[in-house]
């Protein structure tokens, strides 16, 4: 069992630049953050602010350029490709704006997908686990539907079930309501909130305040810097109203 005083995620002086044809484009500048187990954090910011890049680095989909990323007390700098793949298979999972479900594949098969890459969950347990995850997002009647037969909101709930199925330490959600109508968006956010209530750590990336307000902590990123980091939503609302003027 991990020590609860050790942050789940800690970044120290983290920077990220992209290099294109030798030209450096810095995206994130000297960020410092700590996120503990069980938190529901929204990373907010306008497009181009670097919020998605930050999530990709925290989710081991991308590498940072400078600084330290410490995951569950362990530095991650020296991890090779296979070790990163193993972390993605067992410790973290993702919900994407574009759902990214496999086409012409059933809900059950989509949810089972991460389990085939999981090193320890026995193959005999996969279906049971997937069915439980589908039940948690309320899609049991659609288990055998093809992904193309679902509405947008249902697709995103399948993606959440897929993220849940490996019981990861943290679920990253990148604009999960971005492609949904408001009713479906609310349903998806409620599903994420419920997961958080059940003890899952959730890190949400969004540019919509309404969506971010489902979280318990909001980190605002602007031009690659942390602009604010608060759990005081009253002040946040006032600031937003002020910004709109």
């Amino acid at each position, binding site marked *: 069992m991990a020590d609860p005083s050790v942050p789940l995620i800690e970044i120290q002086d983290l920077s990220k630049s992209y290099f294109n044809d030798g030209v450096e484009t810095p995206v994130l500048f000297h960020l410092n953050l700590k996120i503990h187990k069980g938190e529901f954090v929204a990373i907010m910011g306008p497009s181009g602010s670097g919020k998605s890049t930050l999530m*990709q680095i925290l*989710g081991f*989909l*991308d590498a940072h350029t400078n600084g330290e990323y410490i995951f569950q007390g362990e530095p991650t700098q020296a991890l090779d*490709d*296979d070790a990163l*793949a*193993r972390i*993605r*298979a*067992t410790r973290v*999972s*993702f919900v*994407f704006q574009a759902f*990214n479900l*496999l*086409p*012409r*594949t059933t809900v059950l098969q989509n949810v089972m*997908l*991460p389990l*085939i*890459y*999981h090193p320890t969950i026995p*193959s005999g347990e996969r279906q049971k686990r997937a069915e439980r995850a589908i039940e948690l997002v309320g899609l049991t009647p659609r288990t055998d539907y093809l992904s193309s037969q679902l509405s947008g909101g249902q697709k995103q709930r399948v993606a959440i079930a*897929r993220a849940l199925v*490996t019981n990861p330490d943290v679920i990253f959600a990148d604009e999960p309501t971005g492609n949904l109508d408001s009713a479906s968006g609310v349903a998806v956010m409620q599903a994420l909130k419920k997961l958080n209530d059940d003890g899952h750590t959730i890190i949400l990336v969004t540019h919509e305040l309404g969506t971010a307000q489902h979280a318990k902590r909001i980190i605002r990123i602007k031009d690659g810097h942390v602009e604010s980091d608060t759990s005081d939503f009253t002040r946040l609302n006032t600031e937003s109203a002020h910004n709109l003027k």
Partner: protein
Amino acid sequence: MLLSDLLLTATRGITVNKSRSLLTTLGIIIGVGAVVLMVSMGRSFQNYILTQIESVGTNTIDIFPKGFQNVGGNLDSLTLDDYTEVKKLSTVESVAPVIIIPKTVKYGREEASPSVFGTLPQIFSNYGLKISRGRLLETADDTGSKQVAVIGDKAAEDLFGSRDPLGERITIGESSFTVIGLLEKQGSALLSQLDNMVFVPFTTAKIATGQKHLSYMTLKAIGNPQLAKEDITALLRSRHNIKNPENDTDKDDFIARSAEQVTGIVNSVTAGLTIFLSLVAGISLLVGGIGIMNIMLVSVTERTREIGLRKAVGARKQDILLQFLLEAVSLTMFGGAVGILGGLGVGWLLSRIASNVLGDFSFSVSIPSILLAVGMAMGTGLIFGIYPAKRASELSPMEALRYE
């Protein structure tokens, strides 16, 4: 990732787009099918020809004067005395001297041009010729220089049509002969030349043509035909005063050719032909392989987001590499299996047709060619699948997910 998962993932990758997968494998199907067909048919033909040669006997040796084959060579080099001496050799079982009468054969108004051989009764056993009706030539026919003839099936048909030739009189050149025997029809096309023949007694032919030398002689060896050939060569060289210690056959005025030699020639010719045709078929396999690579590259591009997703949920490089490699190999193996069945099917059909035309032609399945085809199909999949698979596995998860 378990092997069963890998297989399942690869199978799903293929079956999701069935018609494209099928079209992709078409090149492999044709390539593998062609290789199997060519090799099997080559073998079948080889067996067929060898069986025919064996039915005449691999221990037969024919001795020709050099002029028989080489323009400007001596046609008179073989004499009756040569025949008498060759007959005495311990390695020779039976010899038949032959004088060919180069004349047309007539029956009433009908005219035909079969080969007319003046020869001794030994020739029938040497060539495996059997009587159908009447009788074969006998020694008494020769000693009495009788005007009798034994005719082959084709010659009989050309001259007599549906009439019974036995007892009828035919004219060869200026002389008249009575038909005393009709030979059995040869089973195969390869030996059909033997059907278009007329055999008359040796002495009768000698008198009719006034020829002192032999057109050729045919004999059967006892034991190893090679030894008999060496004996005959040595005997004829000494009789013809040819000093040839270096054993250069160009210096001889005769040619000794054993059926065994012909067997060797047939073997090397069919083997050469099979290799050549297989190479041509192999090229179509190469083209098929490039088709596979092309489609796999398209597939990798099309499924970039899927690859990104798989990586995001924990797939390692080698999982993606193996998945795409297995897809390519499965495609080629499937194509290989269909190609093998198709090649064998077409081969079987062709050999049935050949059987009707050539007689007694049996289809021989070449197991090595099937193993080769399986190996080639698998190899094609591996070679042409590795590049697209490697490209897929090296995609960064984030770039792959962002791909539009």
